[in-house]
């Protein structure tokens, strides 16, 4: 009985204590609510001011982007200082009205206002929004007068990316464009630096981390009473590093102009006849690019757009690229600030793809320029000797199929050297078959084809150098000997870029080292010429050996020299005084059917542009002491000997004369 009573008593005590604890919690809870009331309601105004202070006192300072300079220190990409107007949405009650008001002082298109309002809607209100970058002096002074009453406005010094050489070097420098949502996802800090520009292509993209530099910032610490206590961090903006390229802007200009003119007569666009033709001829209008200052007149008197194509010139000792041209091109300045939709469409939908850097992303069958590879592979394999002769009757029958030589009547008895000199297709059909595709593949890879280079540029293409495994893997079927025959003249599956062809030629010219191309030099612009020569040979020594017998290399040199200097050489009219060794190539774009062949092939010039042959030419010079290798491609330009070789000749001559090298 007593026990029960005690139990009950204990239970009462417990309940009482639990209630006491509950009450204690209630009191403390009320204390918290009171504290929140004090902070968030009673003293809220003061804290709001402090919070605003925090926002304003954190100022990010943009770093100027590093410049891009050519080998002589000529400016390819730089910055110009501009002022921009920004607004702080959280300080402005009616954004639309505010923008309307500002648009009376500065030029602000309705669609710009639209974009700004969208931007305000999609990000936190405490982040500043750029209203207009690149304010004119007039706009700046007008705004300055009004700024005391223009709540939420601020001015910021900023930089605009400029490309003084414009479209001449656009594919090498690439372009920058404003930060977009994808960039911010990858790098959240960028949202505080809306005026940052990011490299999208070319060197701007490739060297983005070095070029961009590091923003600085200042932050002022305030105490609870709003008084600045100290500067918490004050970090200087760290300008981006300059990039020095091996490119020679002067040679680049010459090469670009030379390529664009092709073998035709140039007519300035201002001429009345051109203006008239542009109005009438829709196709011509579509193919002429923005900013084109000339058109061409072909041999039949028709007005045609400037030639499209690519030129690459490389130093055969160092691999440094001196010229990298791709036409048509575009104006990279257009991208620096927000690109208009119309400009973008025009560039993107242009039939001649001005945004494509043909030098690294354009894929072309190498055609007869591939014959050095096949010949080297055949000699190395020992399936022929330098003396082997083959009888060319104008066609080679294999597997029930007729493979034609470009010379319909045939070359007759041809030896190895003559096969290059005259570019006999039948000779190569046969030795390719004997050598086999795998050995040809191996030689091509050693000479630099079929892989991306060490340049590291975005969108560089690998090209295709096929072999048995490749076909089985990519197409799911076995390789057939007929395909080896076609590969023997650089057609069929084989695809290369102009850069690769220049590299191939450079490695043949060098003969000892497997040089790799480069565009960025570590050193600032070159000093004395002596030092440079020293450096060139030094650099050549660091590349791995080429691993092709000197005998074969010497034979290739001799054969390529015959192309320019032999009595029947395909480019015999286009040698230079310093002596050049080269190889022509003419690539069929459209298959010639049997009926067409019987009816007689239509002249290249009379076919629609898109169906004309590509003209190719590769060369190195001077022959005795090679210095530069060049590759030229004229898209749908006709034959390699008539369309590409003269261009290469003039550019090579220019390069050597600039270096003070003459015969």
């Amino acid at each position, binding site marked *: 009985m007593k026990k029960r009573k005690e139990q009950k008593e*204990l239970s009462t*005590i417990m309940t009482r204590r*639990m209630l006491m604890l509950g009450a204690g919690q209630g009191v403390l809870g009320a204390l918290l609510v009171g*504290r929140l009331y004090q*902070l*968030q309601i009673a003293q*809220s105004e003061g804290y709001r001011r402090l919070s605003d202070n*925090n926002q304003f006192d954190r100022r990010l300072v943009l770093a100027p982007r590093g410049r891009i300079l050519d080998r002589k220190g000529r400016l390819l990409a730089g910055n110009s200082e501009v002022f921009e107007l920004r607004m702080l949405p959280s300080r402005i009650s009616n954004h639309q009205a505010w923008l309307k008001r500002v648009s009376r002082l500065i030029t602000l298109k309705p669609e710009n206002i639209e974009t700004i309002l969208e931007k305000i809607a999609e990000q936190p209100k405490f982040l500043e929004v750029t209203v207009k970058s690149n304010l004119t002096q007039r706009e700046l002074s007008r705004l300055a007068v009004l700024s005391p009453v223009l709540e939420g406005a601020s001015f910021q010094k900023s930089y605009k990316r400029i490309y003084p050489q414009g479209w001449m070097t656009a594919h090498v420098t690439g372009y920058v464009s404003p930060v977009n949502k994808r960039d911010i996802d990858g790098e959240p800090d960028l949202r505080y630096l809306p005026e940052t520009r990011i490299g999208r292509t070319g060197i701007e993209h490739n060297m983005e981390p070095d070029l961009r530099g590091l923003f600085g910032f200042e932050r002022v610490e305030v105490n609870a009473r709003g008084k600045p206590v100290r500067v918490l961090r004050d970090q200087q903006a760290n300008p981006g590093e300059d990039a020095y390229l091996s490119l020679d802007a002067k040679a680049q200009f010459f090469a670009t102009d030379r390529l664009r003119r092709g073998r035709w007569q140039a007519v300035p666009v201002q001429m009345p006849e051109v203006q008239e033709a542009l109005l009438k001829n829709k196709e011509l209008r579509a193919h002429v690019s923005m900013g084109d200052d000339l058109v061409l007149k072909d041999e039949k008197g028709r007005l045609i757009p400037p030639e499209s194509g690519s030129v690459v010139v490389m130093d055969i000792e160092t691999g440094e690229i001196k010229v990298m041209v791709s036409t048509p091109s575009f104006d990279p300045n257009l991208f620096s600030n927000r690109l208009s939709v119309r400009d973008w469409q025009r560039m993107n939908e242009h039939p001649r793809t001005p945004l494509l850097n043909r030098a690294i992303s354009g894929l072309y069958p190498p055609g007869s320029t591939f014959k050095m590879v096949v010949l080297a592979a055949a000699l190395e394999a020992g399936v022929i000797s330098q003396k082997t002769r083959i009888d060319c009757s104008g066609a080679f029958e294999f597997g029930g199929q007729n493979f034609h030589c470009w010379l319909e009547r045939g070359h007759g008895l041809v030896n190895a050297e003559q096969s290059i000199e005259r570019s006999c297709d039948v000779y190569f059909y046969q030795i390719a078959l004997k050598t086999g595709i795998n050995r040809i593949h191996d030689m091509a890879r050693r000479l630099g084809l079929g892989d991306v280079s060490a340049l590291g540029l975005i969108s560089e293409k690998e090209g295709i150098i096929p072999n048995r495994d490749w076909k089985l893997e990519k197409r799911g079927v076995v390789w057939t000997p007929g395909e080896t025959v076609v590969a023997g003249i650089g057609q069929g599956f084989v695809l290369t870029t102009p850069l690769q062809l220049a590299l191939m030629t450079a490695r043949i010219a060098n003969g000892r080292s497997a040089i790799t191309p480069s565009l960025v030099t570590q050193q600032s612009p070159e000093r004395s010429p002596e030092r440079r020569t020293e450096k060139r040979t030094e650099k050549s020594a660091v590349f791995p050996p080429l691993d092709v017998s000197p005998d074969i290399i010497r034979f290739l040199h001799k054969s390529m020299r015959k192309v320019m200097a032999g009595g029947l050489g395909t480019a015999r009219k286009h040698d230079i005084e310093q002596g050049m060794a080269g190889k022509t190539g003419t690539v069929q774009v459209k298959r010639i059917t049997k009926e067409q062949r019987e009816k007689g092939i239509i002249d290249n010039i009379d076919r629609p542009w898109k169906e004309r042959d590509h003209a190719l030419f590769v060369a190195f010079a001077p022959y005795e002491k090679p210095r530069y290798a060049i590759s030229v491609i004229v898209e749908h330009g006709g034959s390699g000997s008539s369309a590409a070789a003269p261009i290469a000749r003039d550019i090579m001559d220019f390069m050597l004369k600039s270096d003070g090298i003459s015969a």
Partner: protein
Amino acid sequence: MLGILQLLYRLPWLLLISAAALVVIGTLALYSASEGAWSPWAERQMLRAAIGTMLLIVVAMMPTPWLHRLSYWGLAVAVLILIALPFVGTGTGATRWIELGPFNFQPSEPAKLAVIIGLARYLSGQTPEQVQSLISYLPVMLMLGVPFGLVLIQPDLGTSFMLLMGGLAVVFAAGVPRRFLVTGALAAAAAAPILWSQLYDYQKARIMTFLNPEADVLGAGYQITQSKIALGSGGLFGKGFLQGSQSQLNYLPEKQTDFVFTMIGEEFGFVGNLTVLLIYFAILASVALTGLRCQHRFGRLVCMGISFMLFLYIFVNVGMVTGLLPVVGAPLPLISYGGTAMLTVFLALGVVVNIALHTKMQDSDFY
């Protein structure tokens, strides 16, 4: 069928709905803390909540005597892990975590719960005479003192004191005579200076900072100052979701963990903070009522202890971010980012639900 309906009827719905609401609020807050992104915090928090829910269901469905039986084992395991921690754990400056693959496990969190349940079992087994006798409190001192000491030397001042307070609340509720309470309080007051001399410098600094925050703008005082600015500038209704400049511009430190309440305050204002506190009140009240309704002493003490433990989490966290208490690093239950604390709270709620389903049991049923 009837059984299920009965079960559904007896479930503490207020508790469960409130807990779910807090998880939702917490996930949204973490989404905002990562500047409007599910990774890295919000998505992992949701995953943990899902695991926690499963844990809750398992514990809630257990027969209550199992809980009773497992309680000493739980405490023993917790103590063993705390002893092993210095040898297997990681942490910068202090050894507080065990790395388990991708997870960091902080054993002092479940230890709090283990101490409460262990003490509840021991004290609920005492006869009224034993309750009055000093000798029966010796095991209590061991059960409370050992884990407290182990956490204190990690060193983790805040957690060890919360563990101590939680346990003492159970002892208090169990009806310890008033004379012991007074003696204990006097002893603690006498020991305080000794303890102070044993504190690490940073611990002393934190307490000093708390007493005078403006003296140390860059350290802990900076955190509190920024936290108060964020809360205060939130005002009545806040700056809006994802619009908190203090949090989004990273003035607010640890906004995903200890200072998440501040972020909610900046973006949703006094109203938002009050809503969160009211939901907590609903949970605490629900746990306490479960305890009061329960007819066995074990259940009553467990509920009492858990409600006090949850209260301590909330009070210490909110007190800290509003500048009422020193910065000791206490999570906000079910909201702040942290796996161990969240799973511990789910485990505790599972225990409460279990007890709520069996309030009619008697103490004698356990033996």
